[in-house]
């Protein structure tokens, strides 16, 4: 996608250009040209096997030289000389009328829902959702690439209704759109072959207002906020950013199980350290959303897990951070998040481990850990994950040698302050999202 943008830029700068890429990327490249006002961008597909390295003879067999010459020299077609607008850009505001099954089928067939049932976004439901912000409905929060759809407050609200969100989720979703738009790797994530999912971490007072789970079972608790925030964001990546068609605008080979489910809060009250959003320059009393992109995840368990041993715990984390580093996701600074239980974090603190000391240890020890040999092959190539390594406290209170690691990649973190509407106290009183059954959040 990015090279398509740059090829369009070369035409803008006055030279005729042709792009060559693997045939599986041709649609993506043409979409990229269209997004930069050059729908006729000539793209030649190669049949070079993906994963090829420097093997000239393998490459030679896959490069269609005659097609490249033709693309460079053949006279323009009438359509290329005077391209017409194919994406009218202005969908009807009212999409459909029907019963709940018909609405769901209509949305699914257009790729608007992702398969799970949706709440019908009626005028009334969207109007109610708009209570969650002081911004006007037609305010454009951001343009989300690659489709560059206008993320108006109303469109955010429509997708929020579909996901089952409440008006009190709107401030977080607006911040989520801002984070996605400003994260410098989002376009790459949308176009990558790798399995990547956005992960949303919530900090500040809004965690407690919305009961965003920061305790036991954070990744599968089933609490409303942990579920609907990532689902609404996923619907917006489909319906606003335009990323959902496998092989056309969603290029990942395997996809990712967390695409619409990775969201949790930090347990700031029980943490001995500064919370994530404060590390990112905001005030503790601010509410915030942080975004990074996750590839894989692992529960880091030591061989002896039934008591806390700071050296054993840090060794286990070290082995895993090297795995992340060696995984090659060093683009712009690999990101890696360790979630520590509040018990483990407090134990670490009692043994004199500050957050900085843990992170420095992970970075330094990681260079000489067993898997570091693999890393050395690329020394000077991949950046160490210093820019992206983070610790948060979440996931219950037990003090075992345990942590949860979310391996990242694709360029680090983006944090946005969550702006609350004036009627926030009334809203959180009206929309109580705490379940009625017994649960232990911390």
């Amino acid at each position, binding site marked *: 996608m990015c090279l398509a943008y740059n090829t369009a830029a070369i035409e803008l700068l006055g030279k005729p250009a042709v792009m060559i890429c693997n045939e599986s990327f041709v649609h993506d490249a043409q979409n990229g040209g269209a997004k930069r006002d050059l729908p006729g961008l000539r793209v030649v597909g190669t049949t070079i096997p993906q994963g090829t390295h420097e093997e000239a003879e393998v490459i030679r067999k896959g490069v269609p030289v005659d097609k490249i010459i033709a693309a*460079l020299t053949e006279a323009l077609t009438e359509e290329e000389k005077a391209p017409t607008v194919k994406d009218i850009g202005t969908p009807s505001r009212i999409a459909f009328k029907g019963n709940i099954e018909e609405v769901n089928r209509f949305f699914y067939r257009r790729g608007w829902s992702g398969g799970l049932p949706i709440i019908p976004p009626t005028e009334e439901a969207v109007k109610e959702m708009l209570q969650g912000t002081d911004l006007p409905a037609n305010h454009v929060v951001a343009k989300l690439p690659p489709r560059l759809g206008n993320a108006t407050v109303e469109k955010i609200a429509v997708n929020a209704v579909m996901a089952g969100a409440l008006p009190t989720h709107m401030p977080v979703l607006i911040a989520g759109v801002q984070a996605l738009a400003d994260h410098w790797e989002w376009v*790459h994530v949308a176009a990558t072959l790798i399995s990547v999912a956005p992960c949303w971490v919530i900090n500040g007072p809004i965690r407690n207002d919305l009961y965003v789970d920061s305790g036991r079972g954070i990744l599968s608790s089933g609490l409303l906020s942990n579920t609907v925030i990532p689902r609404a964001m996923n619907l917006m990546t489909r319906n606003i950013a335009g990323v959902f068609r496998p092989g056309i605008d969603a290029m990942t080979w395997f996809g990712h199980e967390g695409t619409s489910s990775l969201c949790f809060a930090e347990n700031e009250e029980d943490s001995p350290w500064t919370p994530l959003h404060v590390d990112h320059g905001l005030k503790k009393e601010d509410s915030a959303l942080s975004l990074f992109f996750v590839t894989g995840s692992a529960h880091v368990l030591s061989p002896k897990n039934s008591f806390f041993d700071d050296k054993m715990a840090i060794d286990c984390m070290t082995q895993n951070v090297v795995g992340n580093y060696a995984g090659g996701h060093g683009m712009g600074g690999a990101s890696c998040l360790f979630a520590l239980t509040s018990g483990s974090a407090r134990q670490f603190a009692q043994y004199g481990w500050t957050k900085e000391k843990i992170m420095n240890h992970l970075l330094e020890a990681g260079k000489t850990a067993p898997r570091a040999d693999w890393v050395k092959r690329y020394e000077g190539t991949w950046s160490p994950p210093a820019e992206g390594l983070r610790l948060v406290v979440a996931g219950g209170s037990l003090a075992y040698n345990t942590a949860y690691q979310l391996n990242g990649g694709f360029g680090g973190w983006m944090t946005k302050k969550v702006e609350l509407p004036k009627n926030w106290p009334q809203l959180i009183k009206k929309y109580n999202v705490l379940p009625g059954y017994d649960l232990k959040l911390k």
Partner: protein
Amino acid sequence: MDYEVLSPLAEVNVVPPRALLPRVSDLNGKTVGLFAFWKWYTPAQMRVVEEELKKRLPNTKFSHFKQPGGQDTKIADKPYPAMNREILESKEYTEQLKEWLKGVDTVVTGHGD
């Protein structure tokens, strides 16, 4: 019960699409610019493109340009946020590209992934 539902699909600002620039009619005697994306086998791919074009067009000249980033660029030292960014976001990079484009007649950009 029927529901009249709003579309979740965002509007897109439509700007008049650009026409492609006229092609060169013949590559003989021309200079082909080979612009390599930073990824994986792109540089090798562009060398092969040059070799194969030379076989067919011995009077054609070539000039290479590589987008910074990737395996031969230290990320910490990268001069531009260019690995997955647009050229036009960097004034300095855009100027380098403009300078290079002065010496070519047409361009092949390559993505090797």
